[in-house]
């Protein structure tokens, strides 16, 4: 039970942490300086969610691991985030499509978790649900403009959507969620979010004149700690400072 809750919190925290790291890449690289700041804001919101969830995971686990220990001193196989958020996103269209998918899912998840019987988790969700509402709004506006924009932007957005779509399904994988957590009303079954999340995404891509991709799901096993090649590079960058200079402060 404790182990199940720790694992659940780590998975949600890792989603937010790894996504945040990818968002930060855009600072100084966005199409406009205003968007640099927006991406930083979104990434920092996610980092805040990750901090709360990882700190609580460490507390529940009871081995004295802090949020920093969990973020910086775990190895790739110990991270439980979905593969969707760990892959490189050096195309702005990909970044916005992915943000649309991830924030739509996070938003439904956190909205449901505000009713969790675990009051700490409900509290984290209560704060995050307002943040993710804005993330979703931000992604939606860009997807609409780029999808229903010029011929070039439309083609690139459709390519981005086709590339990201296979990684969406893992968000609804519930194999890592302990059944007791569901019975006690602590966790939310991710599979139960599928209809509302996909409906929300479908609404946006329809208005953006994009076609729902007809592609097979990727073999995505991040929830088991099995990640894509790019995850190692992400962790190397994210963890380097903390590992090379233990206890460093500034």
């Amino acid at each position, binding site marked *: 039970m404790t182990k199940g809750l720790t694992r659940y919190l780590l998975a949600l925290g890792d989603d937010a942490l790894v996504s945040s790291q990818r968002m930060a890449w855009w600072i100084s690289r966005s199409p406009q300086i*205003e*968007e640099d*700041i927006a991406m930083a804001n979104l990434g920092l919101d996610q980092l805040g969610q990750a901090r709360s969830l990882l700190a609580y995971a460490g507390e529940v686990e009871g081995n004295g691991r802090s949020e920093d220990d969990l973020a910086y001193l775990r190895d790739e196989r110990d991270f439980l985030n979905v593969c969707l958020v760990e892959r490189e996103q050096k195309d702005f269209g990909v970044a916005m499509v992915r943000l649309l998918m991830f924030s739509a899912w996070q938003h439904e998840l956190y909205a449901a978790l505000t009713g969790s019987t675990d009051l700490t988790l409900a509290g984290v969700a209560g704060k995050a649900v307002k943040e993710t509402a804005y993330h979703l709004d931000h992604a939606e506006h860009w997807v609409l403009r780029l999808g229903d924009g010029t011929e070039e932007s439309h083609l690139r957005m459709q390519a981005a959507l086709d590339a990201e779509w296979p990684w969406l399904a893992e968000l609804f994988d519930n194999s890592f969620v302990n059944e007791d957590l569901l019975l006690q009303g602590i966790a939310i079954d991710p599979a139960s979010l599928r209809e509302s999340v996909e409906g929300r995404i479908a609404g946006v891509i329809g208005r953006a004149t994009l076609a729902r991709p007809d592609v097979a799901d990727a073999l995505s096993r991040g929830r088991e700690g099995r990640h894509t090649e790019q995850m190692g590079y992400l962790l190397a960058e994210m963890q380097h400072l903390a590992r090379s200079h233990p206890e460093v402060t500034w």
Partner: protein
Amino acid sequence: MTTEPLWEVFIRSRRGLSHVHAGSLHAADAEMALRNARDVYTRREEGVSIWVVPASAIEASSPEEKDSFFDPAGDKGYRHPTFYHVPEGVQHL
């Protein structure tokens, strides 16, 4: 993308106060300008309301007209309500 139009941003910091010019930014359209303004100018709880206005819609006074516009007000002390007592507790006056 400097080809995008320029917008002027006005923020109301709290209820009861006026919107005050906060700065400017680029955005493709009004909805995006509003969102950019939220992200750029209200990160530290600066506001409860935002207006964005196309910079091209603003007609500004010219520095060349400074003398005729503003100097004549300089010697008209009777326009200042200095003969009233301000009641206690009145704020933002």
